[in-house]
């Protein structure tokens, strides 16, 4: 006894099977390249962050942007001089990772092609250790070993500070940040460039 499906012409049978496979496949397919629940999302890293009025990502980005561009455009950094970056002094009552501010400033100055950077105090130990390893361990081929005494000394040092004034009342909390940065000529001790960025953030309770 023939079943109804088997009585159909071959091309119709093939068409039905293809359609069924496509429909089943279509239902099972995940239509967006996302795994996981919808409670987590990626946001714009450049968005204005107003979650609390403590020091935040927007403050860090605005400070780094403003300082870098002012310094790059000032004309002081002619001929891509070597700069040594010192840690920014945190004079606020908050914990602020000031190294991230200097890292952003260094990265942006490097991208602009206006300065080169000498090993700063945190990189220096690794630099010295590696030079010693190459020269004293006997592990490396002589012709490829980096010679000691050839490190480039910085012409300028970049140093700064961040301070804050916080005022509270029953209705308001006002935070005022001031970030200052200066470029000092190591030989003469003269400050060749200086700038500051002020930020005010107010919360109404």
């Amino acid at each position: 006894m023939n079943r109804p499906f088997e009585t159909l012409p071959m091309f119709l049978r093939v068409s039905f099977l293809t359609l069924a496979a496509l429909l089943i496949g279509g239902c099972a397919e995940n239509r967006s390249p996302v795994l996981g629940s919808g409670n987590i999302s990626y946001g714009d890293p450049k968005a204005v962050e107003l979650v609390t009025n403590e020091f935040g990502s927007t403050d860090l980005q605005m400070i780094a942007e403003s300082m870098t561009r002012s310094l790059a455009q000032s004309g002081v950094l002619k001929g891509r001089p070597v700069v040594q970056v010192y840690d920014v002094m945190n004079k606020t009552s908050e914990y602020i990772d000031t190294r991230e501010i200097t890292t952003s400033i260094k990265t942006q100055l490097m991208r602009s092609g206006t300065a080169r950077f000498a090993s700063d105090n945190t990189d220096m130990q690794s630099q010295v250790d590696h030079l010693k390893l190459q020269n004293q361990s006997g592990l490396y081929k002589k012709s490829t070993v980096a010679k000691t005494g050839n490190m480039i000394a910085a012409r300028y040092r970049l140093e700064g500070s961040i301070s804050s004034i916080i005022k509270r009342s029953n209705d308001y909390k006002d935070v005022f940040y001031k970030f200052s940065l200066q470029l000092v000529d190591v030989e003469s001790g003269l400050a060749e460039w200086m700038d500051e960025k002020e930020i005010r953030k107010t919360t109404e309770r």
Partner: protein
Amino acid sequence: MGLKRFAIVALALLAGCATVPPPEPGSAASKVLATGPIEDVAIGPMRMARENGFLTVSAQLSNTDTQNRTLYYRYLWMGPEGFPVAEADTWKSLTLYPGQTSFVPAIAPVPQAVDFRLEINTP
């Protein structure tokens, strides 16, 4: 039938009114990218210059409202081919007092920038 014709003509006229001509290339309006309708903020002249190899820009923004107005803005930096040559700037917040006019300055992050766009959002 007459009513139908009238409706068609009226719709065509309305569509004609709603079509805003594109801003002239090089004009201040052509530099503005609005992420929605710009409300109570007037965009004035823009100044562009090259200082020590970097493009510097200043745009005039005015509050036309009778209350304080907060807006968000950022600059985008374009190369000679009309494409971005650096990451977009960080969005910044600006508060304008009633009737206040402010100048929003910026310096390009890389010397390759030859043009800019001002992205504005008025919440």
